[in-house]
């Protein structure tokens, strides 16, 4: 398993990177941590003509806490975000989900933005971004920067709203709201492996929000406003069916629906506890 040949570029600044994308857009794949892209290249599922390695762009390696959001730059690794001391107090959901993202040995290279840009339906970070209602910053030489909500960014299986001449330069996670509880649950064959099903919950007095990854083509979020406890199981059951999961080698559709019901309930209960 060796990748097909490609031309290699290592821009040192964002300007250089955007310039390269503007000139060659469709031929270029962007390499950050490579923990998802390189396996696909090794399998030759992806054969880019040009590979642009952005890891030398120092200005994109940052975590910035603003008033309402935490912004993470394109080359910031998952390990760096996980080790960031303010993570649990500002974006607790991400603090809970990150230990499930790959392993100690892959988080050291894998980036937060890369995981969002790759948009695997089973990925934890896009799920968190969707549940929190975060956003993605896309930049291009021609049109400058635009901010796209998580809901509008991820369109389907490995499919996003990014144009070929654009690059994901940052993602923004909304900071924790007072009186809100968060929880994350996932089922994987081995901890750190791809999830069969992952759920993230957010509970406040305004209602319950549950996001599910690994069942539909992209993380799917549902909101319930005043759902009585007695209606919870039924609501989860309806949600599980609406996701229209299918059978694959990791689990059947029946099993996935059961995971949505069980993990969903567990996450909602836990998030409710965490509100206090």
């Amino acid at each position, binding site marked *: *398993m*060796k*990748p*097909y*040949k*490609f*031309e*290699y*570029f*290592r*821009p*040192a600044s964002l300007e*250089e990177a955007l310039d*390269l994308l503007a000139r060659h857009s469709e031929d270029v794949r962007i390499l950050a941590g*490579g*923990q998802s892209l*390189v*396996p696909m290249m*090794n*399998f030759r599922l992806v054969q880019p*003509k040009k*590979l642009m*390695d952005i*890891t030398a762009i120092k200005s994109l390696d940052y975590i910035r806490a603003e008033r309402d959001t935490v912004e993470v730059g394109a080359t910031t690794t998952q*390990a760096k975000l996980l080790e960031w001391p303010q993570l649990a107090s500002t974006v607790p959901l991400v603090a809970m989900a990150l*230990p499930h993202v*790959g*392993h*100690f*040995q*892959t988080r*050291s*290279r894998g980036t937060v933005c890369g995981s969002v840009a790759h948009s695997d339906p089973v990925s934890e970070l896009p799920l968190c971004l969707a549940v929190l209602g975060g956003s993605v910053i896309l930049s291009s030489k021609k049109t400058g920067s635009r901010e796209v909500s998580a809901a509008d960014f991820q369109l389907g299986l490995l499919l996003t709203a990014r144009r070929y001449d654009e690059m994901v330069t940052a993602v923004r996670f909304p900071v924790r709201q007072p009186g809100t509880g968060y929880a994350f649950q996932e089922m994987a064959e*081995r*901890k*750190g492996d791809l999830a069969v099903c992952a759920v993230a919950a957010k509970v406040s007095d305004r209602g319950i929000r549950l996001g599910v990854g690994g069942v539909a083509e992209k993380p799917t979020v549902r909101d319930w406003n005043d759902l009585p406890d007695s209606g919870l199981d039924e609501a989860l059951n309806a949600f599980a069916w609406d996701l229209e999961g299918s059978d694959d080698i990791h689990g059947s559709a029946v099993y996935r629906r059961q995971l949505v019901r069980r993990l969903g309930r567990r996450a909602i209960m836990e998030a409710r506890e965490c509100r206090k």
Partner: protein
Amino acid sequence: MPQVTSDGRTLINFILNGKPASGQAEPRMLLSDFLRQVAGLTEVHVGCEHGICGACTLRIDGEPARSCLTFAVQIEGRRVDTVQSLLGPRGELNDLQAAFRKHHSLQCGYCTTGILMSATAFLEKNPNPGEEEIRDMLSGHICRCTGYVGMVRAIKEVVASRSAKSKVPA
């Protein structure tokens, strides 16, 4: 901006186990292949070539990394450490390696070089891990022989002896 055409080779300069090293590679060459075939370091083992098994794990600038998910061209100017970096000046095993031997933490040894590099990086970041954390770190590797119990024991022993040492007043 550094740029290498797809058939072109480039000279890569880096620090290998503490010493300057260099070699030629085309962009598509994986770091694991580069180290084995160009630099002759056969301790870099290749199992799955897609980041799952952990056999190829080494350290780049101190961070654990899958060498099968890194291109050789990416290590220009960086520090790469393989299991050889653990050996003492006369080639003696370090405490972690010795503990692995003592606790039968390896049988065929295929997974071992990667695990030793992970464990070394892990213990630097986290000198006092509990068993749960040790197992969590090990979950990034696949060992077909041992069942991991010996590794957990070996790592725990090293944790205990290193922390006892650091408490001894100088």
